[in-house]
């Protein structure tokens, strides 16, 4: 960085190197990128991570398995339930625990609600980056608030839910909760309609987003990109279908795909995904059975978390989090603490193609490209 003035391009014109972030409102946290500019054009970009490093993995390796659950909330704090889901699935794989039918349905209902929350939040903030200052974001937050109120009622907390347990969930959904979810689901399409009227065909949005930050399907698959960013590039890969973890194979839903892989597709795929999530919720609310919410074998460990010792072995569990493939890799040595604990965070891996997408674009567009990837620094830096 000391050599800023020496940077030159082929025609011997000097390049400008600027630091973008870490304290910049549009970097979605403490993310920093070093951008090399030729006029307004980006000709080099280096993401710099680590400002929010909290030693998550090492902390987890010194904690009993159950005590890690609240820490996973803090990874991707926009939708903590997806993190809970992935971690619970991993440990259930490791310990060979089954989940009762009703708990599976509750898990899927909560995870899909979290997906809706995440997607409308992302779209709102992306439009903030575009300059649609807070109007779409507040429309989105108005709806989000209803879901978060429900989360508070069911899990006890709006964001840091800490709701899933190994072999079930912490608290049952009452009939009143189910009625509230039904109300949210029936009202949501009207909001989406309004939201789309405001945005989807908006010429300013189209001009700012279309053909910006194109990510080809080939680059995306080679870089290991997952989630809506990959699907916007036209690759049909959704872990809910591919892996069909939990009971996702019982639901009828489609995988929306983009065509060009630009920012606009990433926005639109998310809108369509919300519609598919509503479809899943519709089906789950009809079919949810009565019954247990915790596996009987796992019940004593709620009171005695330190007695929970999975057999020696390793497990990798993954879910389709709203941001991509969220996986946990846990190695057990038979003690109450994991021997190795690793998080495969979609935000971090999706960021690796940022330079690819930004090259040749204007500096103002880098911000929306970053916004369209949907990163959360809690998960990136861990």
């Amino acid at each position, binding site marked *: 960085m000391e050599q800023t003035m020496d940077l030159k391009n082929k025609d011997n014109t000097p390049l400008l190197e600027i630091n973008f972030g870490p304290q910049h409102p549009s970097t979605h946290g403490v993310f920093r990128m070093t951008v090399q500019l030729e006029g307004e054009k980006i000709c080099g970009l280096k993401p710099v991570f680590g400002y929010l490093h909290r030693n998550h993995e090492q902390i987890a390796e010194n*904690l*009993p398995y*159950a*005590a*890690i*659950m*609240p*820490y996973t*909330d*803090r990874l991707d704090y926009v939708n903590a339930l997806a993190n809970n889901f992935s971690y619970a699935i991993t440990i259930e794989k490791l310990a060979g625990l089954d989940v009762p039918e009703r708990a599976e349905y509750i898990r899927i209902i909560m995870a899909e609600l979290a997906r809706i929350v995440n997607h409308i939040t992302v779209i709102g903030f992306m439009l903030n980056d575009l300059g649609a200052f807070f*109007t779409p974001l507040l*429309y989105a937050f*108005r709806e989000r*608030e209803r879901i978060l*109120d429900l989360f*508070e*009622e*069911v*899990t*006890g*907390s709006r964001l*840091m839910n*800490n709701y899933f347990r190994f072999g079930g969930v912490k*608290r049952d959904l009452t009939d009143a909760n189910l009625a509230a979810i039904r109300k949210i689901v029936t009202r949501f399409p009207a909001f989406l309609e*309004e939201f789309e*009227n*405001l*945005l*989807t*065909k*908006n*010429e*300013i*949005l*189209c001009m700012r987003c279309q053909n910006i930050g194109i990510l080809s399907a080939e680059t995306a698959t080679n870089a290991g990109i997952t989630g809506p960013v990959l699907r916007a590039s036209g690759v049909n890969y959704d872990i809910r279908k591919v892996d069909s973890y939990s009971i996702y194979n019982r639901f009828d839903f489609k995988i929306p795909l983009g065509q060009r892989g630009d920012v606009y597709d990433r926005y639109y795929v998310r809108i369509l995904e919300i519609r598919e999530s509503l479809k899943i919720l519709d089906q789950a609310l009809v079919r949810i059975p009565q019954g247990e919410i915790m596996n009987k074998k796992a019940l004593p460990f*709620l*009171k*005695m*978390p*330190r007695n929970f010792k999975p057999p020696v072995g390793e497990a990798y569990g993954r879910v389709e989090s709203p941001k991509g493939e969220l996986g946990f890799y846990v190695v057990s040595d038979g003690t109450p603490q994991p021997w190795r604990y690793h998080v495969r965070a979609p935000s971090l891996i999706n960021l690796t193609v940022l330079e690819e997408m930004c090259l040749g674009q204007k500096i103002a567009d880098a911000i929306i490209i970053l916004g369209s990837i949907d990163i959360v620094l809690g998960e990136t830096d861990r």
Partner: protein
Amino acid sequence: MTVFGWGVFKGMLVTLKNFATSYFRKPDEGGIFTVQYPEEREKTIENFRNFPFLVYDETPEKIRCVACGICERECPPKCIHIEMETDTAGKPARRPAVFDIDYGLCMNCGMCEEVCPFDSIFMDHAFEVTAVPISTNLNKTVLDQKKTKVSAERAEGLVRHKEKLLKSNEYFREIRPALASAIDQKRKAAEEKKRAIPPLRHNASDGPVLGRESTGGQAQPSATQEPK
């Protein structure tokens, strides 16, 4: 196909409609939903959890906590510190002498509430928590140990001692009626069971216990509670 600018116009209509109808609609349906916070308050949801507090039954002396230390051990960020009280003979008295929770460390996960076998620690609804002035929070000895005032404030500002953490069962019933009544019933049933058992035991082991009746009588009921 369509006129350029039609999308923007439609979007404007949406914002105009939202602006106009916000004055007529109910807050729940898209109306003005701002709550003028310090004056107005939303109703707190029963399951809402914030920092933990300790429940006592009738008087603050009748504390439910027996200082078993399970919450201290299971707390993920290790924000609880407990020391058991000892009587004059040096025997553990099954009550906490020190019970500190550092609210600055606590992450509101609710593990302590979940693991407590004596239904004594629960998550509070009080969210307006600030660092209390050190003069009220600190006792003199701790204050003397600290070198400067600033470091004392930092170290002790959000630590809550036993006296501050203790709250009555009535308060608990007020903030979480469903859970509190369920726990009251459970405790009542356990007490009745306990009352039914001791005479039988006394008959069975009459001789050996007689000499140290007071300590034996205290230890027994809690021993029957533990294996839950």
